[in-house]
């Protein structure tokens, strides 16, 4: 998890929200862990019309101005990564 580019912090949780591994900004952050597990259980009950019962979410991202959280579940574990968003110098040049 440390090798992910632009990574600011990470969490690996069990399905019930217990922290298995953590690092960076999210080190031992049980508060964020609880919020994210609650968010996942909420997302399971979203719109049955727009998303059929066979359509399970595979990724959740939460985007702020300069960083974002990416959340995935694999092998009954919840993986959370906090990553920074770079505005590259070329983009700024275009705006000017």
């Amino acid at each position, binding site marked *: 998890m440390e090798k992910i580019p632009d990574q600011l912090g990470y969490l690996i949780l069990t399905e019930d929200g217990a922290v298995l591994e953590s690092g960076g900004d999210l080190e031992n952050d049980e508060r964020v862990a609880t919020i994210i597990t609650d968010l996942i259980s909420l997302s399971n009950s979203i719109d049955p019309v727009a998303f059929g019962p066979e359509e399970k979410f595979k990724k959740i991202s939460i985007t*702020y101005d300069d960083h974002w959280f990416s959340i995935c579940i694999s092998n009954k574990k919840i993986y959370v990564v906090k990553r920074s968003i770079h505005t590259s110098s070329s983009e700024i040049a275009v705006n000017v």
Partner: protein
Amino acid sequence: MEKELDKVVEEIMSTPNVNGCLVADHQGLCLASKGSAHVDSAGIIVAISEQACKIQPNLKPPTVCLETDNKICLIQRHGTITGAIFKQKGAA
């Protein structure tokens, strides 16, 4: 009274790959919905945006994106109003 809101919803619905749109207030009551977005999901959508806001309450509300294999649901809060857009993933 809701003409302005209807206009915005129409505008969102005319965007390519959008197949549903929903606007709700802070209590989770639906203000407008169109396409595949169901009125009943307003409460859950507001709850999700509130939950996401709790991560960093001092920053401005984030955009939440829920992805399945071929659909995306984007949720964004602005003041007391929460908007959700249901999209089909475009052919990459």
